[in-house]
Structure formats: C-alpha cells, structure tokens
C-alpha cells in the first residue's frame, strides 16, 4: 500500500551538487520544497583522515543506494559488456558527491558554448568530427555569467580571476570569459613543487595559474579555511572547509522553514497524467511506499540515474519513458576524457604528502580553441593540471617507471627512495557527443528492487584520442623541462566506462527533436518537469563540470520562480 503524502509546490529528486543548490532560490522565493535524498546525513565527525576507507572501501558509513545500481558498460553495440564495478563513483548523502569530490570549481571557457559556430567560422564545417551530434548551447557564456558569480559567492569558491570586466590579469586564466568580479577568496596556497612547475611553465611561454576550488582558502561564511591535511580526495572535510551543498545552500534553504529534507528516500518512478504533466514521485523508505504529489518535479540525481528514472517512468502519455516521445533520452551521452594522464619521476622529493587535488597549477594554453588548430587534425584540447596529492597506500602502489619490479627487495629500495618523487598530471579534454554513444536500460541486470540498471554504450573517438596524444606531448615537455628523469603516459583511450564526469542523456537545446530539455532546463514534452545536472550539458569543455551544473541549477530554479504560474499550472 502506498502512503499518499500532502502535495508540495516542488519536489527535488537528489540533494547533491545540483538539487542542493536549486533548493535555495526556490525556498527563498516562498515556495514549499521537498527534497528526496537516497543517502543519509553525514557531518564533519564522519570524515576521518582514513585512506583505507575513503580510497579503497568506498564510503561504507553512508547508505549507498548507488552501489546497488552501478551501470553496466560496453564500448559499442557489438562489443561485450565489460566487468561491472563494485563501487559507484558517486555517493548518496545530503550534499551528494560534493561531500567527497575534488571541489575543482571551474567556469567553462566561452568556446565551449559555441563549438559548432566557432569551429565552422574559424576552420570550416568539415572540421566538426564525423558522427558527432554536437550542437551549440542555446546561449553563450554571457547568459550564464551572473549564475556562475552567484554560486561562486553563495557556495564559496577560491581562485585567481583572469578577466574581470574585460581587463586581463596574467595571474589568472587569461583565456576565461569576462567576469563581473573576482573570486570571493584568494586561491589555495602553492607548495615549492607547484611554484617550480609554474615557473617552468612560464619559461616555456605558457600561462600557469592556480585553479579555482570550492574550498575555503581562508575563513569564509564563518567556516574554517583549508587545513591541507591530505585526505580531500574522496574524503569529506573535517573542518567544513570544502563547500559541499550540505553545509552551504541546503541549511540556508532549511532556515527559511520551507524546505523539507527527506533522507533514505529511494525514488522509483515519476508519475505523469494523461495530459503529459508530471504529478509527483513514488519512493520507498525502509520497505514502505510513498507518493509525494507536487506541482513541479526537479530531477537532480546523477546523469545515469536521471536517464534511468525517465526511462523507468512509463505511462500512457509516455510509453517509452517520461519525456522520451522523440527518443532523445539517453542520447548525446559522453563522459569526460580525463584518462590518458602523464606521470613523472623526479630526482628530488616533491613534498606532496599534505595537500589536495584542488591545490595546483593549471595551464589552459592547450585547452579548447585557445591555440590555432589550422594545421591540426582535431578540434578542442585539454587543461593541464599538476596538483599536490599523496597518501601512503597509493604511494606504495605507484609505478616504478621500469626501474624496479613491483615487489621484493629491489622494489623496496626503489620505493624507499622514490615514494615522494612522483607526480601524476590530470588532463581533462574536450569530449563530444556521437551518434552511437548512448545510455539505455540494461536488458538483464537489475537492482535489488527488480528495476533494470543503466547501460553505458560509449567509446572515445578519434578526436578525443588525438587530443589525448597532443596534450600528453605538452605535459611531457612540461615535466621534462622541470627536470623529470622519467615520464610515462597512459593509453589514449578506448571504452568510456563509468565516470564521475558524465554528460548528456537529457541534453538542453531549443530543438525538441534533438534535445530533452529547453534552454531553461524544463522538458520539451512535460513542461512541469525540470532536469538538473550535467545530463543537460551538450559539451564538456576541458574543465570540471560541477560549477556549471550549479550555475545551471540556480538558473533553472530562478526561471521557475519567475514563471511559477505558467509552469506549475501548465
């Protein structure tokens, strides 16, 4: 038997990076909001500096719905499904993955919004990779700038601006779009090693700068500055210096008295009436079924679950899944190409035991269209990121660069000398959507409730692999110039697999035959259904998606507030 709850104005599915932000402008505007979160509530006491638990055992202290519905994955429709993972890259909990993410909080560059137009203008339409379904965003970066600004100040982002009001500042990213003002906090500090890498980049004629992070570099909003203790990578913050939505926008929304947080709510389907409007959410808590009626539904789980929930929510109006009458749900999927890294070995200690992955040196000279592609056979590029992050178990497993076996006395000699002498660069690369990369429901694998899990069918194509090889060349040059005695590269990329940067599947755009949601994030087919998250993004750029996801979430919420009557009573 299903318990029917009292109707609310808005129900949000998932209180992570996106839903946790959207709740605030809605509640502040006077709407009654219910937030359904699959996980529980964690606080800073739960975030012990424990490498084994954080990095090798997932997050067992949280209720992990996600781990029971890990997507299956294959490279393409004719390849076999690969082995299924045991730990989902994202987590459940109030705040979602903003609890344990790296917290890199980038704006996209202007080019990322206009890939088709700009590529065609500069190099000709033939340079759009064959088979790609890429479109321009329905708006440019100017439209999103006020929301980037809003989130940077509301959540708290540290960094060094590179273009305030059109005035380029060499200390920041000279390629960034114009911003109204700088960051609310200065960038995180650098170590000697990072300083050295930055000066080396300058000697190459490049423009290094500290990356932006949703981490306090000093006290902000009555919360502590970062303690640099080294357990930030898949770890929550013990002093609340990492600005997850759990300690920023969510409590502020709750303080209005109009935002109700429901934890351990396992959403199963979204209901729609015969007119195609959504009416509410079915969810299960401890085996008890509930129906939460709502005037508006905001779907804000992760990309895989956003797509899965839509495909599972079949009704008279939507025989193939909610908002899928044009077959676009699951299409235009891609995950960020952030494999194909480069590792270096130095002859001196880098002193990286304490630090965090968001503390580092970025080079954007080889990202996006920041360099001339006339003589090249690809479009886009990658952000080079050198950061400070090391823990003992991980250090013991580090590559030996062909200088020693992986175990035994010779290995022990190697690791004793070199445990702190390696560095791994993280290179995020432009990734595009393609006709034959998509998400759907797995035909055989089901979750414990009997619902099919999501299936990924996706692989990196030539354009991504060429960017990978090109940016690896640049990274190797940087490391060698800084004195690396050995450099190794990862493979340039095959199957996409499961990712923490998963895009598309409910793409945003003006054309309803190629996009699921409109330019404000509302369904082209079900006008009182909004979708939040990177599943709405049509391009990745070369930078982490979270800040863009949060800016879009704020914008969707603001649009809903301004158009409440027409959307809620559609």
């Amino acid at each position: 038997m299903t318990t029917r709850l009292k109707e609310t104005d808005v129900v949000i599915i998932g209180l992570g990076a996106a839903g946790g932000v959207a709740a605030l402008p809605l509640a502040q505007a006077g709407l009654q909001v219910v937030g359904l979160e699959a996980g529980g509530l964690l606080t800073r006491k739960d975030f012990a500096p424990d490498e084994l638990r954080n990095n090798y055992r997932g997050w067992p202290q949280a209720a992990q719905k996600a781990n029971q519905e890990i997507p299956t994955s294959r490279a393409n429709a004719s390849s076999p499904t690969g082995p299924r993972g045991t730990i989902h890259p994202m987590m459940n909990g109030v705040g979602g993955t903003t609890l344990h993410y790296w917290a890199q909080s980038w704006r996209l560059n202007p080019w990322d919004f206009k890939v088709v137009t700009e590529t065609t203008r500069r190099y000709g339409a033939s340079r759009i990779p064959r088979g790609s379904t890429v479109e321009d965003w329905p708006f440019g970066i100017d439209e999103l700038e006020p929301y980037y600004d809003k989130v940077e100040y509301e959540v708290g982002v540290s960094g060094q601006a590179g273009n305030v009001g059109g005035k380029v500042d060499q200390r920041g990213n000279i390629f960034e779009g114009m911003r109204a003002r700088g960051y609310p906090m200065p960038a995180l500090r650098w170590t000697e090693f990072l300083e050295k890498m930055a000066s080396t980049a300058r000697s190459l004629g490049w423009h290094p700068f500290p990356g932006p992070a949703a981490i306090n570099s000093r006290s902000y909003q009555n919360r502590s500055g970062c303690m640099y203790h080294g357990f930030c990578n898949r770890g929550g913050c013990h002093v609340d210096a990492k600005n997850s939505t759990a300690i920023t926008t969510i409590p502020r929304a709750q303080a209005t008295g109009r935002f109700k947080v429901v934890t351990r709510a396992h959403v199963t389907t979204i209901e729609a009436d015969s007119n195609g409007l959504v009416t509410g959410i079915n969810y299960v808590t401890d085996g008890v079924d509930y129906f939460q009626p709502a005037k508006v539904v905001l779907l804000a789980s992760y990309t895989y679950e956003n797509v899965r929930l839509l495909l599972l929510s079949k009704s008279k109006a939507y025989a193939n899944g909610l908002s899928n009458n044009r077959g676009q749900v699951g299409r235009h999927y891609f995950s960020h190409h952030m494999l194909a890294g480069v590792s270096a070995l130095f002859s001196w200690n880098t002193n990286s035991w304490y630090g965090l992955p968001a503390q580092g040196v970025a080079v954007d000279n080889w990202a996006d269209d920041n360099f001339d592609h006339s003589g090249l056979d690809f479009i886009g590029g990658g952000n080079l990121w050198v950061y400070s992050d090391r823990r003992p178990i991980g250090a013991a497993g580090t590559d030996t660069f062909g200088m020693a076996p992986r175990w035994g006395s010779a290995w022990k000699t190697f690791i004793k000398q070199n445990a702190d002498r390696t560095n791994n660069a993280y290179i995020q690369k432009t990734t595009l959507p393609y006709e034959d990369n998509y998400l759907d429901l797995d035909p055989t694998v089901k979750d414990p409730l009997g619902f099919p899990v999501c299936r990924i069918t996706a692989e990196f194509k030539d354009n991504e692999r060429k960017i990978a090889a090109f940016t690896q060349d640049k990274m190797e040059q940087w490391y060698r110039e800084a004195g690396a005695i050995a450099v190794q590269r990862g493979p340039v990329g095959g199957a996409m697999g499961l990712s923490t940067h998963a895009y598309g599947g409910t793409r945003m755009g003006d054309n309803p035959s190629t996009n699921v949601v409109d330019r404000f994030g509302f369904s082209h087919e079900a006008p009182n259904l909004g979708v939040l998250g990177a599943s709405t993004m049509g391009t990745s750029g070369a930078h982490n998606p979270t800040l863009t996801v949060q800016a879009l979430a704020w914008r969707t919420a603001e649009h809903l507030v301004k158009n409440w009557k027409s959307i809620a009573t559609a």
Partner: protein
Amino acid sequence: MTFISRRDLLKRVSAAAAAPVVRASAGRASRDTLAGQGPPAWFSGDEPSANPAGFPAAESATSGVQAVQGQPRLPLESLTAQEAELMDAIVARLIPTDENGAGAIEAHAVHYIDRALGGALAASRQTYTAGLAALDRYAQSSRGAPFTKLSPTDQDSVLIDVETGAATGFTGSSAAFFAMVLSHTHQGTFGDPYYGGNANWIGWDLLGYPGVRTVVSASDQHALESGQLRSNHKSAYEYESFTKASYDHEA
C-alpha cells in the same frame, strides 16, 4: 637468509612461553577494543611508543625475519593456520625484511588481511582459499616442495609465475590473484594501524610519510620541504574528534 617455517619457529620459542602468552592476549585485547570502536592498544597514548605491546622495535630491526617470526601470531579470525603460514611466507617475499629494514611480516600485514577477510574483504575470502591452495599446488608441482619449504629464490620464481599469469592450476588468472594479494599486502603494510597492520609505523616510516595530521600549516609545509618535519606516528583515530570507522564493515 634461511627460511624457517612458523611451526618450527613455534617449537623453538615454546621454551620462552611466558612472554608470548602475554602478547597473544594483548593481541586479543586490542582486537576486542577495535570491535568496541577504540584504537589498538599498542599505539594508544597509554603505551610507551618506543615499545608498543608485542612489537619490540629494536629486536625486529636488528634480528630480521627469524626474530619476528619468533613472535606468536595474533589470534586468527578468518584464515586457517596453514593459510596464515603460507601468507606469511608470501608477504615476506613481497615486502621483505632486508637491508632497508623491517617488512610486511613485522608490519603484521597478514593480521590485517586475516581480520579484513572476516569483514570488509569478506567477498575475497573464497578467492584466497582457492588461490592459496592453487599456489601451493603449483609450488609442489613445479618446484617439488610446498611454497613454505622452498628457498627464497625458488619462492620468488614461483611468485613471478603467479604474477605474470604463467602459473597453472588457478581458477581464472593467477595474475589477478597476485595483484589482489599484493594490493592487500600494501593495505596491511601502509594502511592506518587502526586496521591492524602497519604495526610500529613500519610502512609509513619506510615511505617517509610523516603521519596523519589534521592541520598542516604553511610553516609545517615549509618544515617538510626543508626536511625538518618529523613523523608524528599518529593514526586517524587517535584524533578524538572522529567517529570511528567500523573496520569490518562490508564495502
């Protein structure tokens, strides 16, 4: 270095039974303390850190494997005695006790694995049973003796076969089994001592890791960069502010 089986060693040390009995019960106590969400007794503030219960640093540093294996085993929770003996022999080759100091044996990597196989690593228990049996069969068939009776050189050559997938008689790939054992041996040697391994900070000292801190100021970082930051030999759970991890929780 001559390999001596644990059984032989136990016989040799049985004359000095009094101390081992005390130490064995200390081991049990620390396990119980863990179950009650406290840190192992041997690194708690109550113990003199120079001589944590059961792990006399001076002895292990100077006398190598024999002296260490002369210590009684902490009570087994998951592995059989035979499996534990085989695991001891394996980890003694993976991270040996040598001129660079103590290794996986002294760090109690096998104790870590034994405990974890009853909890967080329970899903791997069957793989250990089958893999260890296959490894010993392979040692017998290819080198003419059980693994623990082989010379260190022959043990290494068996392990290389297992690592490269050349060893026969495994269910699935022997390389996958090797990779799992090596990874768990790393966890037991370099993980937080809260989980039962990295005894006496052997793993962290080998790497030069200066210890778990909750605050690393700019001047701490400068001290690290100028070689002045000394290891604090602290576990995450010695900081009172944290909710204890459940060490046996299913991942």
